[in-house]
Every structure is written in C-alpha cells, then in structure tokens.
C-alpha cells in the first residue's frame, strides 16, 4: 500500500483533521487576541484624540464668535460714547459712520439707528425705510432700555429677514437714547459656518429656547426649534466647559454633538458630525485589520492543510516502514525459533544417526569376514549398507546446516585481531574446502590495528563470505583468496573466488533480507543481509564486484578511526 492510498485510511484522515484543527486553533487564537487587543486600544486612543481635537476646535470657535460679537459691540459703543446726541441724530453723520463701519468690516453692519426713550427711531441710516419706525412694543427695545448694551437673538423684525441687533444705551439731557446697529445674518452665519470638518461636520448656534441663531447644515423651518440644547447639558462635560453628547437620528445614524456656551451663556455653539464620519479612520483601520485577518486566516488554513498532509504522509510512511520492520522482526523471530528447534533436533538426531551408521559399518565389517560363497546376497547387503552410510552422511550435512543456521550472535565487543579471525575461519573451512577441491590462499597485511568489535559478529561475517565462496565453487572446485590490508585508514578484507559469478540482474539485491539464489531449503537469504547490517553498524561498508564466469570479490571496509581499540 503506497502512502497516498494509506493516508485515505479513516485513521489518518482523522489524524489529519485533528492536526488541521490544532494548527488553526493555535495560529488563530494569538492572531485574534493580539489584533483584537491592538484594535481595541487603538480605537479607545483614537476616540480620545478625536474628542480632544473636536473639543479644542469648538472652544476656539466659541472664542472667535464671542470675539466677533464683542468687537462689533465695541464699535457701536465707541460711536455712542464719542459723539453728542445731536451729532448722532444727524442722518448724514450716521450714514457717514455706517459707511466707515462697512468700509472696515464689509457688509457685517447692515444699518444704524438712533431711538428715543419712547421707542421711536428718530434717525436711521441703512437700506430699509425704517425712519420713524416705532419699537416701543418690541421685546428687544424693552431689554435694551434696561441695559447699557445689549445683543439680541436672531429675529425677523419689521424687515422680515433674519438678523440680530447690537444696542448701546446713552443718557443725554436726562433721557436715555439707544444707538442700534443691525448685524448681517449672512455675515454672522459665515463666521459660524467656518467650522467644517469631514463630510458631515458643521456648526450652528442655538439660544436658550432652542431657536437657531445661525443657519444649520440641515434644513429647518424658520420657526423650528432644536431640543439638543437640553440633552447636551446631560452629556459629558470637560473642565473647559465643552459638552459631548451622542444620539441616534431618525435614520438610525449615530450623531455626535460637541457644544460650548457663548455670549455669557445665552447662546450655545453646537458642532454636529456623524460619528461614522468623525471616526472614519477607526473604521478604515478595522477594515484593514479584518482584511489582514481574512488573508492571514486563509494562509493559515492552507498552511495547516498542507503541513498536516505532509506530516501525516510522513507518519504514514514511517508506520508502513515500521510495519514492514515488525514483519521482518517477526519473520526473523520465527526463523530464530525455528533455528532453536533445528539446533535441538540436529543434536538429538546426530547421535542416533551416528550409531546407525556405525552399526551399518560394523555389519559391513562382519560381512567382509564371511566366506564369499556362504552368503547368497552379499552384494545386495553391501549395497544396502553403503546406502545407509551415504544417507547417514547426508543426515549429518543436513543437521550441520541446521546448526549453522541456528548459531546465536554474540554482539559484545572485545579487542579483536582481524588476521586471527581470518585464520580461524580458514581452518574451520579447510575441511569443506578439501572435499570440494577448493584451494584457500591468504595474504594478510601486517601491523593491522586491533579493533574493538564483536568477535562473533566479525567471525560470522567472514564465515558467511567464505561459505558463499565455497558454495559457488562446490561443484567444480577452484580458488579462494582472502586478503587483509590497511587502506585509506580503513581495514579492508577481501574474499575473492573464481566461481561462476553473480548475474547482473540479481547483484543489486544480494544484500536484501530473504533474498537468495540458492535452492529451496539451502539458504535463508539472511546471511549477507546480516553481514551488511553488522558492517554498517561499525560505520563501514561491504560491496561486491562480480564478473560472470570469472569470479566474485566481496570487500569489507571497516573504518579504523571509530573502531580502533585504544
């Protein structure tokens, strides 16, 4: 089963799902916490900053308007106090003064008038026909008569257009006289409207009754009043006397009011702006943050999926390898158990077989002493006895192979002289070599280092290579050459035979476990695999060179540096 197929298994699918969720959760939680926290702090800080800025603007604008009114009042006071009533009652004189004021301030001053204590305008300079106009019943006249100076609310009056007046009372010849100036509503309005912020921010003025004293940025009827002058006072107030108030209009928009009193508390300057407009930058920052979170989230999800898939594929591959290894261990374990059993059987069988063979040999010996003509089937007896002997030897060979297979590996390390092991192995194999007509030659290097390795393991490696060489030469005989030398700081052992060689098609598989070219029952396929494992464990290498009908050479290379006995 390949990895792609394996990861479709429900177990790996569930694992991948859990991994994806975990990675997303671990990535998203800090992202959301940090971005949310930063955005919240930024929002609070930005709101405070905007409110402070608006408060300052409204305060300055209030001071500007108050300054505007005071300046105009002082102009009228100067005229009233500097000239006699006779001069002021002179129409030409009054016109000249109006012309001088208009030259100085443009159309801010619309007209000037002098009113006696009965409310009759005795002199008038201005564009309207208001000579001899009677103001005795006008509310403003009554108030103006009581105060040294007075600034009225905006009203329509006799002319029918919105305006307000500034009056100064002077006492001449024991009677009060009123000098009145009309302030252009348009001019005053332009001063108020001067405060414009964003798309929806504008200012207007209300009096204490909620009547508009300037033209607001929205449509209102002439007589319409506004109740915000009451609700504003309920809002937050700063130490500078700036009021902050919020409310929802008919359309559901959140409206911000920033207000301040002017004209000694008679008027209220109100700055109005949609909250969304005032705090537009916060919304913009929120949108950017949201886009970043969305993009970051998509990237995180994609990464989580890819990473989890990659990791699960790795785990699946590792599991597959583990299963394969486990299977190999089980197989090897089974073989080891089989080996133990085989060792027991071999030992138990060898003795009775030896007795059988010896008994047959004894019969053969006795038959030789019998007279030739006394035993009718002597030849048949001899053939049968020879067959018993042959089969007994065959049994011995079988049990020898069983014992060889069952040999245990002792991996404890000790100081080992490689040449001694080679000589031991040669001696051990010499008998088999003699029967197989094989000549073993050795050329062992001098002054080889003593290695700290497992004696049994090294013996097994060399015995395996020698047995393979003997197997290759068993049928036709030949030569085996075993060499040892020190080359490039490695101890190199060569086992060369002039046998039939290994076919190129199989040479790359000879170190694979359970691979064998020997007849069924003659090889386990573990010999070279175990040798390969032993040499690799020492950090060395084992390789093979083979030419068909010329022979095979196995080279074992053990690094001196890591294995030399200190």
């Amino acid at each position, binding site marked *: 089963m390949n990895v792609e197929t394996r990861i479709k298994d429900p177990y790996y699918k569930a694992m991948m799902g859990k991994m994806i969720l975990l990675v997303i959760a671990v990535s998203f939680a800090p992202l959301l916490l940090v971005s949310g926290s930063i955005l919240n702090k930024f929002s609070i800080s930005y709101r405070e900053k905007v409110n402070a800025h608006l408060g300052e603007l409204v305060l300055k604008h209030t001071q500007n308007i108050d300054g505007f009114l005071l300046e105009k009042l002082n102009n009228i006071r100067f005229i009233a106090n500097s000239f006699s009533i006779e001069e002021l009652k002179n129409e030409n004189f009054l016109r000249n003064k109006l012309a001088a004021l208009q030259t100085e301030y443009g159309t801010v001053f619309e007209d000037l008038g002098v009113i006696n204590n009965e409310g009759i305008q005795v002199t008038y300079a201005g564009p309207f026909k208001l000579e001899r106009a009677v103001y005795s019943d006008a509310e403003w006249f009554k108030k103006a008569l009581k105060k040294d100076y007075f600034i009225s609310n905006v009203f329509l009056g006799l002319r029918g257009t919105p305006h307000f007046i500034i009056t100064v009372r002077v006492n001449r010849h024991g009677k009060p006289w009123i000098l009145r100036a009309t302030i252009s509503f348009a001019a005053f309005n332009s001063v108020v409207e001067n405060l414009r912020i964003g798309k929806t921010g504008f200012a207007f003025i209300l009096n204490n009754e909620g009547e508009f004293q300037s033209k607001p940025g929205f449509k209102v009827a002439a007589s319409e009043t506004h109740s915000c002058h009451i609700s504003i006072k309920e809002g937050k107030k700063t130490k500078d006397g700036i009021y902050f108030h919020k409310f929802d209009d008919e359309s559901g928009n959140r409206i911000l009011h920033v207000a301040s009193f002017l004209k000694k508390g008679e008027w209220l300057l109100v700055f109005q702006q949609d909250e969304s407009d005032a705090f537009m930058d916060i919304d913009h920052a929120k949108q950017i943050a949201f886009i970043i979170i969305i993009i970051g989230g998509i990237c995180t999800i994609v990464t989580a999926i890819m990473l989890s898939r990659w990791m699960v594929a790795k785990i699946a591959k590792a599991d597959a390898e583990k299963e394969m290894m486990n299977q190999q261990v089980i197989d090897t374990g089974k073989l080891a158990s089989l080996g133990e059993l085989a060792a027991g059987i071999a*030992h138990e069988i*060898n*003795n009775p077989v030896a*007795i059988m063979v*010896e008994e047959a040999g004894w019969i053969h*010996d006795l038959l030789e002493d019998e007279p030739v003509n006394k035993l009718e089937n002597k030849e048949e007896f001899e053939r049968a006895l020879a067959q018993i002997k042959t089969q*007994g030897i065959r049994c011995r060979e079988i049990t*020898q192979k069983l014992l060889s297979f069952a*040999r245990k590996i002792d991996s404890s390390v000790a100081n080992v002289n490689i040449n001694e092991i080679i000589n031991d192995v040669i001696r*051990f194999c010499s008998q088999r070599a003699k029967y197989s007509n094989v000549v073993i030659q050795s050329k062992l290097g001098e002054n080889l280092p003593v290695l700290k390795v497992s004696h049994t393991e090294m013996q097994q490696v060399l015995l395996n290579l020698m047995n393979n060489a003997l197997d290759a030469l068993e049928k036709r005989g030949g030569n085996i050459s075993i060499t040892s030398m020190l080359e490039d700081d490695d101890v190199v052992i060569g086992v060369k035979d002039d046998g039939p060689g290994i076919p190129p098609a199989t040479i790359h598989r000879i170190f694979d476990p359970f691979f064998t070219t020997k007849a069924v029952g003659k090889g386990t396929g573990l010999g070279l695999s175990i040798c390969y494992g032993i040499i690799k464990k020492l950090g060395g290498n084992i390789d093979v060179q083979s030419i068909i009908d010329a022979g095979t050479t196995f080279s074992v290379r053990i690094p001196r540096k890591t294995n030399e006995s200190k």
Partner: protein
Amino acid sequence: MIVAKALLVDDEIPFVETMTKRLNKRDFSISSAFSGVDALKHLEENSEVEVVILDVKMPGMDGIETLKIIKQRFPLVEVIMLTGHGTIESAIEGMKLGAFDYLVKPCDMEQLVAKVSEAAMKKRKHNEKIIEAQLKDIALRRI
C-alpha cells in the same frame, strides 16, 4: 600389530560399543569410557593410552572441560574431538586447547582411522624425542 592404543569417550553407549568393535577389528586397541570423569580415571590407570577420542557434548563434565584436564595431567596424550553438534566455537576452542583435530559425527571410518593413526604417530614421535633426550642426558651424565 596394534596400530594405536586409544580411549573412546562418549555418553552414547551403543555408539561406543560399536565403534570399539570396529576399531578393534582394524587392529586398534580400544578401551572405552562413558563420561569425562571415567575417562580421566581410565587414563590414570592406563598410561599406555596414546589417543583419546573425546565426544564434546556429554552430561556432567563435557568434552572441552575433560580436554583441559587431560592436557594438564597427560600432556603427551593426543586428543581427537568428536562432536555431534559441530559448531565452529566448540571445534575451534578444542583446537586452541591443544586437540589434535576434530571430527563431526557421524564420521567416516576411514577418516577416523587415519586421524587416530596420525595422532598415535605424533605421540610416538614425541615419546621417541623424549626418550632420545633422556638417553642423551644419561650419556652426558656418565661422561
């Protein structure tokens, strides 16, 4: 003429009996023992034994242990190891301890005869050298 005087040691009684008969038939003088302890006792009592044919695996004192003691007490006696479980370890250990050679059961009679003869010859040559040396020593003393 006796080819060699040998002691056959094995816990397998039928094997020892048959092998003894066969070797006796080939002009060997074979005595037998069924354990390592018996073998050592026999060697104590019979100094003419030239070769010991010794099974490796025996109950009680095994062949390797017996070989060690034989080589300590009777260094001139040659020992041929006979093993029914021809492991390289036991065979090589036996050789290192001074065994003349080893054979794997069931062994070929001709091979066994040849090995025992060779071992006996070696023992006799050894004896001859010792006797020569002793004679030389006596002659030198007389002079």
